[in-house]
C-alpha cells in the first residue's frame, strides 16, 4: 500500500528492505521508495536552485540515475543520503552554471527574472536564502531541511568537516536578521 507523502524520515531499515525488494524486481518497492523520498528531494533541489521547473527536472533526473544504479547499490549503505547526495550535487551544478552566466554581467536567460515564490517561506527569509551562494544553500538545506549532521554532510559533499561548519555558520549569520522576523 502506497501512501503519498509517507514520512520520508522513516527508519533506514525500511529503506534497506525496499532496496532489497527492488533489486529482486518488486515494482511496488521501487514506487514506495520513490514516494517516500520524492518530496524532500524535490524541495531540497528547489531551495538550492530556486526554480520550480529546474528543481523538478533535477529531482527527476536524480531519481532516474539512482534507480538505474540500484542494482549495483550496496545495501549495507543507507539509501537516503546516497539519493540526497545525487540530488544536491546536481542542484549545486545547476546553480553554479547559472551563476557563471551572471558572473559575466549578464541577466542569464536561464535565470528567472524574479525568484520563484517559495510558498510557505517568509519573504525576507527567501530573499536572504537567495543571496547565499549555492554551496552555502546546499549546506543549509542538508542540515535544516534534510537534517543531516555536519559530519554526514561533509561525507556526502566530500568536504572537510570544518568547511561544512564554516558554511553553516556563515549561512546562519547571513540569515540571522531574516530569521528574527519569522513568526514563531
Amino acid at each position, binding site marked *: 500500500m502506497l501512501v*503519498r507523502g509517507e514520512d520520508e524520515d522513516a527508519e533506514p531499515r525500511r529503506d534497506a528492505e525496499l532496496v532489497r525488494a*527492488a533489486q*529482486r*524486481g518488486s*515494482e511496488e518497492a*521501487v*514506487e514506495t521508495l520513490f*514516494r517516500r523520498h*520524492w*518530496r524532500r528531494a*524535490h*524541495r531540497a533541489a*528547489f*531551495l538550492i536552485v530556486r*526554480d*520550480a*521547473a*529546474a*528543481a*523538478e*527536472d*533535477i529531482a*527527476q*533526473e536524480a531519481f*532516474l*540515475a*539512482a*534507480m*538505474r*544504479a*540500484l*542494482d*549495483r547499490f550496496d545495501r549495507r549503505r543507507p539509501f537516503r543520503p546516497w539519493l540526497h547526495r*545525487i540530488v544536491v*550535487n546536481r542542484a549545486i551544478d545547476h546553480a553554479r552554471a547559472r551563476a*557563471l552566466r551572471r*558572473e*559575466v*554581467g*549578464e*541577466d*542569464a*536567460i*536561464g535565470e*528567472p527574472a*524574479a525568484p*520563484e515564490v517559495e*510558498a*510557505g*517561506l*517568509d519573504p525576507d*527569509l527567501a530573499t536572504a536564502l537567495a543571496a547565499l551562494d549555492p554551496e552555502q544553500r546546499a549546506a543549509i538545506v542538508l542540515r*535544516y*531541511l534534510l537534517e543531516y549532521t555536519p559530519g554526514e554532510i561533509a561525507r556526502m559533499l566530500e568536504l572537510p568537516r570544518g568547511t561544512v561548519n564554516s558554511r553553516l555558520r556563515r549561512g*546562519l549569520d547571513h*540569515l*540571522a536578521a531574516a*530569521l528574527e522576523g*519569522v513568526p*514563531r
Partner: protein
Amino acid sequence: MSSREQVLRDALDEVRVGDEGAAEDRAWRVVAAAGVAGVGRPERRRRHRWRAARVALVAALIALVVSPAGASVRHWVADRIEPGAPHAVPVLSSLPGHGSLLVDSAEGPWVVHPDGSKRLLGDYAEASWSPHGLYAVVTRGHELAAVEPDGTPRWTLTRPGHVELARWNGPDGFRIAYLEGRALRVVDGDGTGDRFIAGGAAAVAPAWRSGPGHEVAYATERGAVVAFSADSRRRIFATTPTSGPLRGVSRSASDVGGQRDVSGVAPDGGVLSLQWTGARLLVTRGDRVELLSGNDGRPVWTWTPPAGSRVRSATVAPGGDRVAVVTADGGTGRVLLIAKARPSRVLFAGPGKFAAPRWSPEGRWLLLPWTSADQWLFLEPGSGTGKLHAVAHLAKQFSPGDPTAARFPSVVGWCCTVH
C-alpha cells in the same frame, strides 16, 4: 540546536513547491516509463515492469491508430505494446547508415563512429562538428577550442565570459559563431579574428546559412530572430520580438545541443532552435514551427501543433523536404514527419520525453533520443516497413566513470564520415 536554528528548520519544513502532487506524479510516470527499476531482473519481472508503461502507451496511441494520420503507425504501435517489448539492444554496437555522431555527455563530448566505437574528446562541456567532420569546436567555461576527432587540440581561445553554443559555418568552415554570455561573437575557423557581432542573444545555438555569404541567424532574449552578415555586420532581417525578457527557461543535461529545454516554463513564443535549409530559416518555438524567408524574415510556412500540445524540437532533413517535429502532450511525446504536400504523419509516440531528433547525413535514418526510456530509437521514415532499431542504457554507456552521475547523452550532430 539553537532557537535560531530551530526557527530555520521549522521555516524550511513549511516550504511547498507549487503543485507538489502533480510534480510527483509526473516524475513517477517518467521513472516508471523509463523502466529503470528492473536492471538485471528476470524476464518475467521485466514484463510487470513494463505493464504500466504499456497501459499508458496504449491509451496515448489509440487516438492515433484510429485516425487517418495514425494508420501508418499501426506497426509501430503493435511493436511497442508487444509483451516483452522493447526489443532494445543493450549496447550501441553500430550506427545505421553513414557518418559519425557527436554526443555531449556528463563526462564530455564523444565521437561515435559507424562501427559503434567511440572516443571521448576531452573534458569539455559541449561540442559541434565542423562542416566536413574534420574537426569539432568545443567549449568549456571560458574556453573555445577546435579539436580533431581524436581529441587533439588545434587551437584554443579564452574569453572573459562564459562561452557556449559554438557553431561552425559551412561549406567553407571559415567562421565559427558562439555565445559569450548574451553576446553573439564570431571567430575565424583558424581561431583568429575574434569579434563581437551583437548583444541580447538568447541561449539558442546560432545558425549559419550555407554558402559563401557567412550569414548567421540568432535568437534574441525577447523572442525575435535576427540574421546578420558576419563579415560586413550588416543586418539582413529582424523579426518582431514576441515578448519581454524570457524567464525561467533552463537548459538541462538531457536536452542541450542548442535546443532549450521546454519541459519547464519556457514561454510558448520563445525560440527553441534555428536551422537553415537552403534560403529559408526553420524557427522552432513552443507554439509553432516556421520557415522564414532568408531575404526578409517573413514567414513562408507555419505549422502549429494540435491543441494541448507543445513543440519541443524540429529538425529539417538533409535536402530540406521533410521536417521531424517532436511534440509533448501531458505525459506523452510524439515525433511527427511533415513533408511537402502531404499530411503530417506520426512516426512514433510514447510516454515521457523525447529530445531533439537528428537525421543521418544521407537523410535515411532519424535518431530519436527517448530521454525518459534512456534509449535511442533509429527510425527509417521512408522505408514504409516500420523498421526500428532501439538501443538502451545510453546514460551508463556514455558515463562509464560514474554511473550515479550519468545523464542521458545529447546527440548534437550526425555528420559526414569522419576522416
